[in-house]
């Protein structure tokens, strides 16, 4: 019962059958005529049984992506384009963005469950946790009695390692780690195929985080759902994710197998991100971090949003917007992609600029 050793190309093929495909998703904040374009045509695919990590700095749109895919964005969020295709076990594909309310409601929690960032705020403080788990079950299985639903809830709690007598507790009577586990139990209630977890462990300390992460890995092993795991903590992601997508300023800048990202980053931002946390083991190395601060999403011009902070920026970066392409490093896993003009000379040439070569730092093997 160890984590599958992720990252090897062979394994990627094994999980390539997609369960959730996000295509060209665009999201604005603000209903007025001057909205912030927070996500711009983001595409992402989650394979069946896969753990997809989503990383990037604060405010780059990770949560927005997750919530938009489930249409749970709070006002004034507005989805302005794209598709979210969900493929169920029998292979039927539906676009979540085209469902009406009733269909969407029926699909929720069954197909796709979500664990929110703060567990304290995700549980209704005035109801016992048992009831909160049970009402999700009963909303989708009308002929389940309350008693059966509670029995199932007890099972679920045991699954995440909490004594079933906690069913009768109110959220405030549980510790932070327990609440987070209750949330996970709740998310698993209907055996969903996709689990979205938005920073499920940020508020916990390392020991507790470790426990939860193990739990998730273990459950996925047993139940076979796919996970989108959002966190800032790249080291954690590398450990638990099969594949990692790195976001920057509302776009995905790199998408590759976890260890590929770690050992062979292709985007300057991924590379910098991975060099900005100190290692616990191994040689103590000098770290530089990423200079500057992320751009204001409402003032993005054309060109690469990372250019101002990029050590490898060249002329074309300020005019040509990079698209996700296969990196220009021979021998790379064919499934990985990166949005950097250094890897996309074709686009640079097409825009009439002079391309620049891929620097050594971004072409490690």
């Amino acid at each position: 019962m160890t984590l599958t050793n992720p990252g090897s190309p062979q394994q990627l093929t094994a999980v390539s059958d997609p369960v959730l495909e996000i295509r060209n998703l665009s999201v604005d904040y603000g209903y007025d005529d001057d909205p912030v374009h927070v996500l711009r045509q983001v595409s992402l695919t989650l394979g069946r049984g896969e753990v997809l990590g989503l990383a990037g700095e604060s405010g780059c749109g990770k949560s927005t992506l997750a919530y938009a895919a489930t249409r749970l964005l709070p006002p004034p969020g507005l989805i302005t384009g794209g598709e979210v295709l969900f493929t169920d076990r029998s292979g039927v594909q539906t676009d979540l963005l085209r469902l009406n309310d009733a269909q969407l409601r029926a699909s929720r929690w069954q197909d796709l469950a979500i664990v929110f960032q703060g567990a304290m705020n995700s549980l209704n403080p005035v109801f016992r946790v048992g009831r909160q788990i049970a009402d999700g079950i009963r909303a989708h299985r009308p002929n389940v009695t309350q008693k059966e639903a509670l029995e199932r809830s007890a099972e679920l709690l045991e699954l995440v390692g909490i004594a079933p007598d906690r069913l009768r507790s109110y959220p405030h009577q549980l510790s932070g780690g327990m609440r987070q586990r209750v949330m996970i139990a709740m998310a698993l209630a209907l055996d969903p195929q996709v689990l979205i977890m938005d920073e499920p462990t940020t508020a916990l300390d390392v020991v507790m985080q470790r426990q939860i992460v193990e739990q998730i890995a273990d459950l996925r092993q047993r139940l076979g759902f796919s996970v989108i795991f959002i966190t800032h903590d790249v080291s954690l992601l590398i450990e638990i994710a099969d594949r990692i997508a790195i976001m920057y300023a509302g776009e995905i800048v790199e998408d590759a197998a976890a260890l590929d990202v770690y050992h062979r980053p292709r985007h300057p931002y991924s590379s910098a991100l991975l060099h900005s946390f100190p290692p616990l083991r191994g040689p103590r190395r000098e770290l530089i971090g990423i200079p500057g601060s992320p751009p204001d999403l409402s003032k993005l011009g054309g060109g690469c949003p990372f250019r101002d902070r990029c050590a490898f920026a060249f002329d074309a970066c300020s005019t040509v917007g990079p698209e996700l392409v296969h990196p220009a490093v021979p021998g790379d896993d064919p499934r990985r992609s990166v949005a950097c003009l250094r890897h996309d000379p074709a686009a640079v040439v097409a825009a009439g600029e002079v391309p620049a070569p891929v620097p050594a730092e971004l072409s490690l093997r």
Partner: protein
Amino acid sequence: MKFFLRRLAFYAITFWAAVTINFFIPRIMPGDPVRALIAKNQGRISTDAEAALRVLFGLDAETSLWQQYLDYWALLLRGELGISFTYFPTPVLEVIQQALPWTVGLVGIATIISFTIGTLIGTAVGWRRGTWADSLLPISTFFSSVPYFWLALVAISIFSVTLGWFPASGSYDRSLVPAWSWEFVGSVIYYGTLPAITIVISSIAGWILGMRNMMVTVSSEDYVTVAQAKGLSERTVMLGYAARNSVLPQVSSFALSLGFIVGGTLVMEIVFSYQGIGYFLFTAVAAKDYPLMQGIFLVITLAVLLANIAADIVYGVLDPRTRQEG
């Protein structure tokens, strides 16, 4: 347990403070019940009566303020409130006993209706914000901004005098004698309708607003989004999650607003010639009828305190977090 003891101590202090304020205010300020009575009768009571009235009201004896205060407490602890000047020689307690049920009945029911409807509307408006429902807010604010008596007088002039739909004054048909008969109860309801409606209209905005704001705030809580994510029905999410949590602050403001409400009823009772405690308070103030004034004020304060205690309990039931320490 400790929590309740603390609350109890608080209520005791409040009660003591109310009694004391209540006792001192009329005494440290000028005013004389006998002269007020003579003024009220402008020329119809001869001035020779003044001395007799002074004896009658027991105002001829001189006692120190402190002694009076002690006497007052002694009286209170015996459950007596003294004898009213205006309604001499009726004991204040009797006046209150007779008036209180009417006020509590009408205002209580109107307030509960207002609270319920207001909270429901607030729930709906808060849930559907950004739609036409938002336009309800300015309208209801308008009605809460006009002075109550103005609204009531206009209502009387339209619905009673011009249209004749409702009686203009009184709490029941004066030809009836109070009894538990359909006729009488029906009459009470009929006579109470217009006052109740005006109270509801002028007070509902507060509840709508409070609830709406809480709904908006609570709706953006994660647990509401989680409830939606769980695919619960709209109704369950709106009522069970958003409204259920939004209503908590409403409960405490409900108790606190009772003070306001009782104050407001005074105007209602004057305008509608409704028999109730507010009108008696008003008469007592005008007539410098200290015993009555103090008695009524005390009862009102007590009622508000009780309501607060009730709200505390309801709150405790509704919100498990308050029960935390057991």
